[in-house]
């Protein structure tokens, strides 16, 4: 199974797709007057002027994600994302020289801490705590030179909204919106921080990221189930690693590793900025050159070479957590660039999209076995990924009953293709969705920037949406037969430990 689609992927890369853009009428999104402006250093700007309120949204994607990490530094892409809010040699400090002079001592203290931590079972906890306190004291000494969260302060007083960032498996993004008359501020601050970030307060931020991990994964049944499920599904490809990082690696990552990650992946040639709103396109072009033009290019981004080997039989795991059962069932499917991707998206809609979908009708409405049934493809889209069903049973029904229903409906789809009515519903929903996505400056900027960063083509996402309308019943049946076989399957079930911990009973 996996061999077959690996072969297909290779063919798709080697030859032009059978249907070219010219042969299909362009969708409304593809016709947007986006101006693509590429600086000599490779930094790409997508500029779109829109009528409406005088606001402007900025979204930058870097081709730098969790998959680009190397062994032992998981979580660094994400930790580095946090560090880009800590400032530069001028923002976030009142005396950079004095501050910087302390970094070697802080890093040495961190190395001692890490050395003790690395002993694992042999770690001396008293010594570890002593080293932790020493590290904290040193970093607190440096803090006298820190102007805390200055980037936030400047943007807040200028009326910026939505300042945030997120790290994914494939890429990392940074964004905020400004009143249109203050657009130049983005150029000044952003060019400063991507040119010259200072990783101050690094080790206390490492602790913050550990708390983020506890908040999203370790204390959350669904977060924990997802993490274990991906680890079971991928044994070679980095999609199996948590983007937030493995706890022991978060606690051991050094400032230098994070800087190394930055130098490898954050060159301007790996950045795509979308600017959407009430803008003057020529002014944006001029400012792009003025503020970013002299940043030297970095190494081009090289896709991950690892391919997940074909799966040799079903994998089945249980994850113990003091909570009620949940289920994930998934199949390896190709990445988004594969010609089968639109048919897989339609298949997901036929089975779980809306109250009239096959699995929802069966599990939620007819049999009352589940509170919800959904399907999503993740953890990224650049590389082959997991087509995943998520189900939550209603006691006394079990996750096994949800599994059975999923397998039977897949069998049925392999035998009988979807009806015209089902396909029409999916087309209408896709059309409405693609128009609704054009509503906000931010949403549009995010899509343009992401599409260009991942596919080197801002129209690609619009085209993928439009492609759903051309998927036939036979296409859906074919992909159902191609990918959804038991030996390509991973099943993860959340189960309560035999003896629940105190206080967590239900």
């Amino acid at each position, binding site marked *: 199974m996996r061999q077959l689609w690996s072969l297909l992927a290779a063919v798709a890369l080697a030859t032009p797709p059978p249907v070219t853009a010219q042969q299909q009428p362009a969708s409304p999104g593809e016709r947007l007057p986006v101006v693509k402006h590429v600086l000599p250093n490779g930094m790409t700007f997508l500029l779109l002027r829109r009528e409406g309120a005088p606001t402007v949204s900025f979204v930058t994607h870097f081709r730098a994600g969790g998959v680009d990490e190397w062994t032992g530094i998981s979580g660094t892409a994400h930790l580095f994302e946090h560090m880009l809010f800590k400032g530069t040699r001028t923002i976030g400090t009142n005396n950079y020289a004095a501050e910087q002079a302390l970094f070697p001592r802080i890093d040495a203290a961190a190395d001692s801490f890490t050395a003790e931590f690395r002993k694992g079972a042999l770690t001396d906890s008293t010594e570890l705590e002593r080293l932790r306190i020493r590290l*904290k004291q040193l970093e607190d000494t440096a803090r006298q030179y820190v102007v805390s969260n200055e980037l936030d302060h400047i943007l807040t007083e200028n009326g910026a909204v939505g300042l945030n960032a997120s790290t994914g498996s494939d890429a990392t993004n940074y964004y905020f919106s400004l*009143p249109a008359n203050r657009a130049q501020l983005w150029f000044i601050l952003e060019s400063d921080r991507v040119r010259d970030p200072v990783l101050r307060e690094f080790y*206390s931020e490492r602790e913050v990221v550990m708390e983020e991990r506890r908040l999203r994964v370790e204390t959350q049944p669904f977060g924990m189930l997802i993490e274990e499920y991906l680890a079971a599904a991928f044994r070679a490809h980095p999609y199996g690693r948590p983007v937030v990082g493995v706890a022991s690696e978060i606690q051991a990552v050094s400032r230098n590793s994070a800087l190394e990650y930055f130098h490898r992946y954050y060159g301007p040639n790996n950045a795509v900025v979308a600017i959407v709103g009430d803008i003057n396109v020529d002014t944006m072009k001029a400012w792009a050159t003025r503020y970013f033009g002299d940043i030297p290019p970095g190494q081009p981004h090289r896709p991950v070479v690892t391919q997940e080997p074909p799966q040799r039989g079903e994998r089945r795991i249980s994850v113990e957590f003091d909570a009620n059962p949940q289920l994930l069932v998934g199949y390896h499917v190709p990445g988004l660039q594969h010609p089968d991707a639109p048919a897989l998206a339609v298949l997901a809609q036929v089975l779980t999209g809306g109250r009239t979908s096959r699995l929802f009708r069966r599990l939620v409405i007819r049999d009352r076995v589940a509170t919800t049934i959904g399907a999503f493809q993740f953890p990224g889209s650049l590389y082959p990924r997991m087509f995943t069903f998520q189900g939550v049973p209603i006691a006394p029904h079990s996750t096994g009953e949800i599994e059975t229903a999923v397998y039977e409906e897949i069998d049925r789809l392999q035998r009988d293709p979807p009806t015209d009515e089902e396909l029409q519903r999916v087309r209408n929903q896709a059309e409405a969705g693609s128009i609704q996505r054009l509503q906000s400056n931010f949403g549009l900027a995010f899509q343009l920037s992401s599409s260009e960063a991942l596919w080197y083509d801002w129209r690609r996402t619009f085209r993928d949406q439009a492609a759903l309308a051309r998927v036939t019943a036979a296409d859906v049946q074919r992909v159902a037969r191609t990918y959804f076989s038991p030996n390509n399957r991973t099943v993860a079930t959340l189960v309560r430990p035999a003896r629940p911990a105190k206080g967590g009973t*239900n």
Partner: protein
Amino acid sequence: MRAPLSLGALLLAVVPVAPLAQQPGADTHARIQALQFPPLRFNPPQPKKVTLSNRVTVYLLEDHALPVINVQLVSRVGVANLPDSLWGVGWQADGLLRTGGTTRLTPDSVDKLVDLYALNISFSTDHEQSNATLSGLSRYTDQLLDLGFEMMKSPRNDTSRVRILAAQQEENWRRRNDTPGSVLGRAWSQVIMGSHPLGRSLVTPDEIAGFTPDRFRWVQQRLYCPQNFLIGVSGDFQERQVVAKLESLFRGWAPCQPGLREVPPVTYAQGPRVVLVEKDVNQTNIRMGHGGGIRVANTPDYFASQVADFLLGGSGFTSRLLARVRSDSGFAYSAFSAWGADTKREDLFFAGAQIRAEKSVAGIALMRTVIGSMASEPVTAKDVKLAQDNEVNSFVFRFENASQIVGQQLSYAVDGLPANWFDVYLRGIQGVTPEQVRQVSQRYLHPDKLVIVVVGKPSAFDKALSALGAVTPLPVDSIRR
């Protein structure tokens, strides 16, 4: 804005660091300071206000940029206006409006229409208001409005769908303690508000046992009925046509039935109190607070409390709580405050965080200190200016699109605020002084009288929780709702 930046530039100037001059980013402060922003010329479009023949008010704002229409209906009564015995039915009456079919259409037929035309039709019954949101492609406006109104006017509450809802709610009840956040939210409400309906968010098994189509109908006829509505329409439509359509849709819709009550008065628990719910997690969920003492009104105290909340914990990284608990200490990913205010009554002030188990007690003590610092270490003119500049400079984001502008007018009308409330608010915020922030903090924030609710594993804490005061254990199974 000027003050902090000048200070920054000054510090740079007096620190002779040679390499800086060669760094391209060295003059970032100077560059920002030199920026001359052109004035922002913007007159947000005003929705048109129309009164239908049944005296329902409609706010309309056309925007033909995209072929999409958005209709919001807000009813000025909610679940807290129902008798206590119907709270659970009311809390779930919204979902059943969507799924239960109509007297004319089976539930399946409704689902098919919604999915085929890709309509978004959803209902939500909240504590003191009830909402319907109808949106879709404008070429299906008739289908959207016909179906959405039919669902509200003549709900079927099909028995099979009531049974599904009951089974799902029973499962929600079973899962109520699965995440620390769910335990904390419910424990906090029970401790601070007792059994008052405004503090509730989960239906109990006893209430689920009382789900019947008739009881749902009784509730729906009172929460979704003509006289209680305010309507907002935005997007791609022609005013005349939509108004005529609404007139026809309201024709023959029975008037609101009696039987609702005023929301009973709320009494908030008095601190100091420390309540512990044990849960085996490596991160402690914390909430602390008390009655907030403030109402939404054109008063100096209200505006000062808004600025105080912004600077204490309402504005993320520029606030004291996140700076101290996260950035400086690394104790937590998230820490915040929320100084609530309402037009009708005093709301709650509270602060929250999820803190590493081994720093739980130190973290709570730090949060308490930071709350107290609003009075003991008064905010500066620079701090207040930050909050004011943020409000003034970001105002345009409150008017970014037609549905947001219409939604704002709807919420002012529901709250009984004037249509120009945003201008009043902005002026009020601009008038706040550091001394007012100090006074309002001193008068209304009581770090020594906090009700503190903690969900976590005490054996992993840095020290005994009793260091913060006498601890009342609250077993997780005695969170009743």
